[in-house]
């Protein structure tokens, strides 16, 4: 096989992996595929799986898939990054600043100095250190969670709005009405939500993804070189990889491979050697090499190789100390003692289990058909950043849905059957009688009672005589919550017709 065919194969695999990731992303709310298929990308992620095993001191059977990626890395180095990682492929799709020669003809290296590459290892060590102390907070830096979260919270809702806006205009054009309706009936059920989805911090998540892409303009694959903790993890393993890039003796120093390398790891000052911890085996250097048959080879090498960056014992200890301190500070925060009364968790979640298993992958946010699950900001304490909570004003827990528990790759949300989920208490509804239309304004409303999905409704209407300001009497239906029945699904809060905050709100049960 010629080198250009290998490159084609790599690009095809990259494309397939990205399309596969997007297909699973799109299919998540459809319920037509097994949820254990939907969460496959996360279960392949060795960093997330290792960290949650450390934090929870347990092994989730589904996470064994990640061992495959570890084995892959032990054979082919960081080939995950060059051949499979969907975020890496996204970065490859965008324009980037490539290494070139300076005006004097000397090779010109892009981006911060090579020593900055250690940041990804430091991040990795801090993440694993925090996991060891029970906190998974920093897993929001994992590349797969970043992509999933940004697509879920920002990109897809925005795309839906753009498509819907175009449809709204075009459907009024007489001869386009039928095609547009056909298009919508065909595309919306698969690709787009049936109604607008709103997400918390949409702009922030858009900026995070945009920022990572923008760093491409400083240096190609900046994220993968300097920051990606998963890249750092695989880089460590690559130290023992079987296949490595090797430059043969008769290299003439043409520098073409140096300018071609997407991670900038080829060092002209060191005989054009590369660091296996940085090399993604993308093979671009082989393609660039005018004498590729003989000069650059990938061949098995036995025995460890000393990488550019080998964390010293001191740095490991510093990182662990930083991790321990961070966790201790997070837990010293007042929010840790007194979480928000609105910290309503997905059905069946036990707080300690959720905190020690949740890898912030956002799969549950994506699978939630009503957009009710949203990333926590401070509700669950600093440590609980971006863990899932139910925000009933944005959506409700659908009585006929149990997707979140099914899709969770780490069992942070237990996989309940629909029958179990329908009796699972996640919170309790409380009526604000100072704002409720019926209680405060003496006007019949009862939307909350109507919406309550329970076979024995948890909201009852009591007819009462009230005296209006003009002295007249009026019979009015006043809603009451029968707390022992309420499961806290939040549809009453979602549908409450008041502007702004609802007059009926779901809280964590006051009795705890």
């Amino acid at each position: 096989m010629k080198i250009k065919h290998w490159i084609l194969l790599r690009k095809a695999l990259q494309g397939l992996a990205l399309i596969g990731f997007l297909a699973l992303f799109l299919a998540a709310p459809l319920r037509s595929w097994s949820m254990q298929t939907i969460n496959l990308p996360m279960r392949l992620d060795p960093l997330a799986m290792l960290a949650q095993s450390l934090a929870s001191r347990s092994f989730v059977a589904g996470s064994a898939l990640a061992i495959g990626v570890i084995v892959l890395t032990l054979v082919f180095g960081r080939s995950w990054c060059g051949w499979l990682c969907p975020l890496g492929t996204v970065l490859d799709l965008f324009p980037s600043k490539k290494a070139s020669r300076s005006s004097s003809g000397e090779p010109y290296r892009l981006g911060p100095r090579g020593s900055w590459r250690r940041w990804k290892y430091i991040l990795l060590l801090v993440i694993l250190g925090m996991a060891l102390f029970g906190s998974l907070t920093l897993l929001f830096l994992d590349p797969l969670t970043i992509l999933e979260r940004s697509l879920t919270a920002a990109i897809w809702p925005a795309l839906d709005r753009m498509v819907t806006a175009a449809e709204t205009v075009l459907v009024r054009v007489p001869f386009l009405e039928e095609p547009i309706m056909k298009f919508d009936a065909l595309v919306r059920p698969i690709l787009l939500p049936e109604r607008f989805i709103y997400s918390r911090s949409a702009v922030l998540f858009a900026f995070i993804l945009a920022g990572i892409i923008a760093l491409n303009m400083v240096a190609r694959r900046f994220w993968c070189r300097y920051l990606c903790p998963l890249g750092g993890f695989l880089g460590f393993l690559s130290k023992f990889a079987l296949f490595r890039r090797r430059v043969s003796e008769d290299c003439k120093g043409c520098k073409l491979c140096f300018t071609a390398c997407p991670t900038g790891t080829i060092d002209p000052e060191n005989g054009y050697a590369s660091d296996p911890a940085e090399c993604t085996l993308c093979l671009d250097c082989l393609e660039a090499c005018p004498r590729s048959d003989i000069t650059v080879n990938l061949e098995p090498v036995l025995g460890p190789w000393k990488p550019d960056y080998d964390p010293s014992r001191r740095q490991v200890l510093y990182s662990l100390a930083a991790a321990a301190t961070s966790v201790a500070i997070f837990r010293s925060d007042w929010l840790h003692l007194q979480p928000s009364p609105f910290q309503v968790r997905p059905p069946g979640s036990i707080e300690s289990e959720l905190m020690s298993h949740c890898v912030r992958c956002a799969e549950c946010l994506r699978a939630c058909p009503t957009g009710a699950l949203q990333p926590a900001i401070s509700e669950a304490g600093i440590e609980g950043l971006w863990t899932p909570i139910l925000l009933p004003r944005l959506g409700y827990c659908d009585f006929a849905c149990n997707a979140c528990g099914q899709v969770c790759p780490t069992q942070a949300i237990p996989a309940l059957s629909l029958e179990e989920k329908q009796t699972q208490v996640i919170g309790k509804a409380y009526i604000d009688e100072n704002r409720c239309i019926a209680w405060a304004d003496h006007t019949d409303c009862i939307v909350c009672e109507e919406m309550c999905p329970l076979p024995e409704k948890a909201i009852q209407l009591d007819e009462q005589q009230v005296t209006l300001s003009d002295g007249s009497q009026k019979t009015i239906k006043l809603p009451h919550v029968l707390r022992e029945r309420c499961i806290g699904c939040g549809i009453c809060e979602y549908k409450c017709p008041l502007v702004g905050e609802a007059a009926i709100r779901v809280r964590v049960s006051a009795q705890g």
Partner: protein
Amino acid sequence: MSKLSRRNFIRTLAASAGAVALSPVLAGCQPNQNPATSEPTQPAAESQLAESTSTQALNSPTQTSPVPCSGSDSQPCDTPSTSPVEMAAPTEQVKEPAEPAQPSAGIPDLAVARGGEPEDLVRRALAALGGIERFVKKDARVIIKPNICTDYHTYEYATTTNPWVVGALVKLAWEAGAKTVQVMDTGFGGSPKSGYDRSGIQEQVELAGGEMVVMPSFKYVSSPIPDGRDIKEWEFYEDILNADMLINVPIAKDHGSTRLTLGMKNLMGVVLNRGGLHANLGQRIADITSRIRPGLTVIDAVRILTANGPTGGNLDDVKKLDTVIASPDIVAADSYATRLFDLKPDDIRYIVAAADMGLGRKDVENMVISEV
């Protein structure tokens, strides 16, 4: 200044559009979703498959109807072996959906069919009203509006319209020579698609050759309500307003604030901002009805939900009545249906309001009722 290349221009444009589209995502942290009017369905508790087997339609409208045609129809109605096409002609007056067919001598105001399979009930009731051809013209674009309020339960729970009742109407519409037959509703619990599926209506409609349509948000238009007393304008689903014939197929159910959800309440499924209607629900339902005016209302009372409506979920609250009520007068149909719950039309505020606006009659005792 460097020249802006076309590629860069397009990229900049796309980025700007993305930013504009994104801003409402953040700004709009307040969803506009509101309660709907419909109901849900659940696992088969009893072997209900028998319902689908009712093939021997007694009074198929394609056959000569035993009931004389509407007197307002100019065509003779006693022509033997009338083909559906010919039968379609006499229905000129139904052309305008805003004006329901006027009852006239010999034609009952309302028909009630009792006992039998759902499809049979529908066919008998329609035959008693003078045949489907009175309502569905040849080449008419027909929309059928069942109640599919949630995706919680299957049809045995009497929260969504009986699938075979809807299927029968689809068949009847085709038999009358309809050009298109669409079935649609937007509920309030779960997605419309999952509701279509769970209720069993999707299956029966497709078996009958009809089309289930999910109502996209961009198809709603703001429309004046000239006769509205409380609201003068609201957002309606455009196709519902423009249909040649709208057949309203509610299920009779208990409902917290209005006491019962029947034909008029069912129309809330085709408007936006339903939460906004609740402030003065009785009058506002009547106002909405004055704008939509379905040409035919068929109330499914094969099973009724007597408590914990409209969402249901408890089989103890379900009563099997094997009854279908049909009338071109939506107020009359709703008024009659109150009897099933031992109530009176005057107990239901939207019936009182609609009768007061002249949208139909609520004096059940004076109506010509054909019981078949």
